[in-house]
Each structure stands twice: as structure tokens, then as C-alpha cells.
């Protein structure tokens, strides 16, 4: 399973359920589990925060 944002390998736990949100360790994108068999992940909608300014 690879991250749709950065292509990093993502290990999704076996008991993961649909609609759960997992986070990519490499880029911290939040990914929604669209289906579990097979596992399909989609980038969860995000609000851009103001950071550092």
C-alpha cells in the first residue's frame, strides 16, 4: 500500500475499518480508508493552517 500523496510505503493494520483515517509517516498526509479489501486510501480533506507566521 503506497501513500497517494508521496508514494511512501504504508502499512495499514489488519483491523483497519472503512472511513478510518490513517496518517502517512513520511509526509503526514491524513488518508481516509475508502475500502479494506482491497485497501484503497484517499487523501482526506484538510484545512490549511497558518503556520509560522
Amino acid at each position, binding site marked *: 500500500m503506497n501513500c497517494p*500523496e*508521496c*508514494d*511512501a510505503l504504508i502499512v495499514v493494520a489488519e483491523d483497519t475499518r472503512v472511513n478510518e483515517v490513517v496518517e502517512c509517516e*513520511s*509526509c*503526514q*498526509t491524513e488518508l481516509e480508508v475508502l475500502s479494506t479489501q482491497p485497501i484503497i486510501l484517499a487523501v482526506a480533506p*484538510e484545512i490549511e493552517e497558518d*503556520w*509560522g507566521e
Partner: protein
Amino acid sequence: MKVSVIGASGYIGGELLRLLLQHPNIEVIAATSNQYKGDYIFNVHPNLRGYTSLKFSGHDEILSSDVIFLCLPHGIAMSHIDSYSQKAKYIIDLSSDFRIKDINQYYKWYKKKHEQPTWLPKFVSGIPEFYRESIEKANYIAIPGCMANASLMALMPLEKENVLGNHRIIIDAKTGSSGSGATPNLSNLHAQRSGTVRLFKSMGHRHEAELKQEINKDVQLTVTSVELVRGIQISAHVTFNREIQEKELWSIYRKYYNDEPFIRIIKQKKGLYRYPEPKILSGTNYCDIGFSLDQETGKHAVIISAIDNLVKGGAGNAVQVLNIVAGWDETLGLNFIGLHPI
């Protein structure tokens, strides 16, 4: 292995001593300085108190060693290279004397004729990430300049993948004060250097020569001193020869760096430290690399890299190179995690 450090009273020499003194397979047998000859090393490098009772010897008292590290100002190592080579099987030079392969380029950038052109081809470029195989077999290695190294780590994957456009690549480098060495002068006087944002080289910095040797593009290095003792951060403004996607950038950098022990790709969506930043790298051998693509055009990006100039930018890289040469675990003696907060 027995090693000697020539020019051990300077900042690069001192950092090398720090790393070597805790390296499990190494014994430091000599550390030279004319200025401090006869003084305990820890009088100059106070962090080493308790770790060594060695005293500085003179620059000309070279003992037979397995390895000699040269930490001299540029232009000096080349004059003595023959005699060094009689004392040691391996020579790792941290100065710029054997970095530039082309003597005309050397002349252009250093305004001085190279004294030992026949030695130039014997030296291998000390960039593990791109010349590991040559290093494994080398006896003589030239460690790249600190800003050159930080920039190359950022640019080489793009160069190798042929995605760079033809526009000038602008590298805006920010650097700390230890980069200019341990000799007091007006420009590094605390009251003058403190709190500066001083653009001191708009273009034509000598490390540019090293970049141009590897990157076949128009590259400009602009260097600004900032309030920092250790550390370099560069932002390289690049263009691409075609539209590119963020995912592709990820995969290019992954391709070259996924197995590299000292390169981390930093591009985070959370926290304060989203791109590479030098302060948390102080004392570590990491080169952190990040990138930001212009999503609107797909043709412009900023590549960011950060290192500790004294470690990955010099002494740490030299130890990594030695580990490779000696066939040891490449990370030996280089496993410091880095501090935060700092």
C-alpha cells in the same frame, strides 16, 4: 586504525577529533597545530576534556599513520602531499586543494596555479551518496566544501533524472560563523557578526566551482551570513524542463536517498519543522532535504537542504568516508541523534 589530524586546532580539526575520539575502531595518535604546539588539546577544544590527554604536535611532526586527515587552509595541503603520502596509506583532505579536477578551473577560482596537477586524478570525490563505489577503492579522498555538499545533495537527483530546466539555478545559502574558521578577524568579531543577515557573496563563491563540476547547468550561489554558529541551510530555486508532479519529486528523491543512512527527506504537513533546518542537526551527520513544488506551474520548485557545516559539511562526512574505505559500518561513530530544543 591509527590516525593523525593535521590542522587539529581549527574548527574542522576539532570536530574531527570529537568524532574520532569516540569512534570504536580508531586511535588518534597525533593532532597538529603550530600555534598551540605543546598545549593540551582540551585547552583549545574544551569539550574534549576527559576524553584525551594528547597534546598538539607541530605541523611538521607527522607520524606514520594508517590515515592522515588534512584540515588545513586551502593551498597548503598540496605543497606537502608527497610527504604526507609517505606517512600514510590513506589521505582524506578536507580542504579544497584536490576537489577541482580541472587545473584551469582551479586557477580561475583560486587565482593560483595548482602545484600538484598529477595528484588531482588520484583523488576521489568524497561524496558517499554519489561516489560510494569509487570511495571504497580509493586511497585519496577530497571531501567537498560544506555549501557545495548541501547544494549537491539537493540538486544531484534532479540533475541525474534530467528534469532540470535551463534557467539559472539560484541557490540562496545561509551560513553560520564556524564556517569561516577559528582565526579572529573583524568579520567574525562577535559584536559585528552577531545578529547579521549579511550577504557577503552574491555570486562567484568558490563552492560554486564544485557545483558546476557536478551539475551541468547555470548555477549561482548567493551566500548570506546569519546568526548561527553551526549550520547551513540552502534554498535552491530550480526550474524543470517539463511539468512535474509532487509525487514524481518524491519518487526521484526516494530513488537516490531511500537507503542513504544520512539523508532524510523532510516535507511534513504537521509541526513546526516542516522543511530542513540546521539547528536540530548540530553535531549530527544528517543532510535533511525537502522540496516545495509550485503547484500552479509544475515548473518551479524550491529545494531545501540543511546540514551542520562541521559534520556532514566536513568532519562527519570524512568519517563516513573512512568507514567506507575501511569497510566498516558506514554509520560507525556517527550516530548522534541531534538536540531539540536547541
